[in-house]
């Protein structure tokens, strides 16, 4: 496989160094660790620390910025960062108001962030966490805590960052962030596999004409494997799953993200939104905002996911504030 890297053992170091050198105006590395802080972070507030395995760029590294995360803990390829790295990241941005860890719900992340919280506790840093489990194809609703976190991370980070910036106490930031998490669902579709840099084999095998609904970012099995279909049929199925899962009904207000998984083109993603908009309009949903980008990826994996965030007045207020990072920037949304 053609991969633009040097030796695989140094991929993370070189990738991270490149990113931080390019954006050194905004970011500063935490010495000795694969983590960094946003220099312009607001002080005297709860600190937001996000993180997870690398290889999903721009998640998580692209989501530190104004009104977003204060620091990012980066793991190895598809592997959670280790406890010491996470705890040092928290220490670097802690302002005495507590730290919120925000990450995807995966066994490795849960174990490592839990240990990091224990390390923080030893240093009298108050820490809490929210695990994002938006992927409604990864487990039934009765086992919601078995669900994986995918592109829904983006909206949860946005709202958590705004809640931190509002100067709320940790318990309140935690409540709002959990509420955001519980108002979000995502479903994905894979058309082709990604890869682990340095390994010649793809992360999974999918026939030339095959697709899989609900397949996870690392190739975790989804809910149905079938043959390729026109986009209107793909979106109809995926939107149908989300509508059922979230009980969407007329006049519900939503924010939407069409997320590319790595190699799917903007032309295709825009076409997905064309179909999605049609369904949402037919159902009478009120689309407050929409995004079409590749935020949560798995190298050259093909496919996309649709994320829907169901808004209420409280969540909308935090959603509407301005935020900025090199990858995710929004203007303040005024009263309509």
């Amino acid at each position, binding site marked *: 496989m053609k991969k633009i890297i040097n030796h695989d053992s140094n991929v993370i170091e070189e990738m991270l160094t490149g990113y931080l050198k390019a954006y050194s105006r905004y970011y500063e590395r935490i010495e000795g660790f694969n983590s960094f802080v946003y220099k312009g972070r607001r002080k005297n507030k709860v600190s937001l620390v996000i993180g997870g395995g690398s290889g999903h760029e721009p998640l998580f590294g692209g989501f530190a910025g104004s009104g977003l995360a204060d620091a990012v803990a980066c793991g*190895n390829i598809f*592997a959670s960062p280790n406890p010491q790295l996470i705890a040092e990241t928290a220490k670097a941005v802690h302002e005495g108001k507590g730290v919120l860890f925000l990450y995807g719900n995966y066994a490795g992340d849960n174990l490592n962030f839990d240990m990091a919280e224990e390390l923080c506790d030893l240093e009298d840093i108050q820490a809490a966490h929210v695990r994002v489990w938006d992927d409604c194809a990864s487990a039934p609703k009765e086992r919601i805590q078995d669900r994986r976190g995918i592109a829904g991370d983006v909206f949860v980070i946005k709202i958590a960052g705004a809640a931190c910036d509002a100067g709320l106490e940790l318990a309140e930031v935690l409540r709002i962030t959990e509420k955001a998490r519980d108002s979000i669902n995502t479903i994905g579709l894979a058309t082709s596999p990604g890869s682990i840099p340095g390994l010649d084999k793809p992360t999974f095998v999918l026939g030339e004409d095959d697709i899989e609904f609900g397949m*996870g970012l690392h190739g975790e099995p989804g809910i149905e494997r079938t043959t390729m279909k026109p986009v209107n049929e793909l979106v109809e199925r995926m939107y149908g799953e989300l509508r059922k899962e979230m009980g969407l009904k007329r006049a519900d207000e939503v924010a939407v993200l069409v997320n590319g998984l790595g190699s799917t083109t903007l032309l295709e993603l825009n076409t997905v939104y064309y179909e999605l908009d049609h369904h949402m309009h037919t159902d009478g949903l009120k689309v407050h905002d929409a995004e079409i980008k590749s935020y949560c990826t798995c190298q050259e994996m093909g496919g996309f996911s649709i994320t829907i965030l169901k808004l209420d007045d409280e969540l909308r207020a935090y959603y509407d504030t301005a935020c900025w990072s090199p990858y995710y920037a929004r203007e303040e949304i005024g009263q309509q």
Partner: protein
Amino acid sequence: MTTRTETPTLTTITQTSATPTATTIPIDTVTAAAVLTTLTIDQTTDMILSVCDAIMGNKEYLTEIDSRIGDGDHGIGMSGGMEKAKAALESGRPFADINSIFKTTGMTMLNSMGGASGVIFGSMFLSGAKGLPPMTELNGPALAVIFRNALDAIKARGGARVGDKTMVDALEPAVIAMDAIVTLEGTDSSNLILLLSSAEKAALEGVENTKNYAAKFGRAKSLMERAIGYQDAGATSVAIIFSAMYRYVSELFFSLSSHEKVILE
């Protein structure tokens, strides 16, 4: 098929040790007086270094196993952690006690690997010797206690039990096998070769058993019963670790035996 280097593949380990309980150790090389019961600090360091080499040598193999039902990063993670542990052991030796060897290995893995394996396998080495009085030699009962402590810590942290298709499926039977040998042999004279051959055999059986289980943890979890038929990569790593320790003590024993020209019946 993947190419595996340095250490025997798991398949060949299985072949050579399908029956290596005490009785298959060539009886003509064992005398009552010549039983390996303790390792020095230096020998224990070498044994754990051989574990590092074994895991590093099976990187591709572990990756292949993991990619069938996981995301294929287990080999990379384990190999990377063991590479760092090897460097830490080499630069840290000579160690003041046995405990420091396990602590150094565990801390290095925990603070470099990440992922579920970083916490679980890091804890295995770290928790094993935690709280034990400093030891200047390693005997069978101590080794059994170290892995019993490790098992308890891992179960407490990860919540996995036998049958959940995790590394516990290999570790728990290995610990039980070691406990049984210690009970059988008495606390002062456990034959390390017998102890570790039993542990290896039990771990390999545990790996085989993981093929029958649906996954309850990790990324294979979403496969549920579809993971049946495939062995667990973490359990495989446990078996490789015990195989390497067994191989180390066997080779040590036979080299010592030949140096000392033990005369056999």
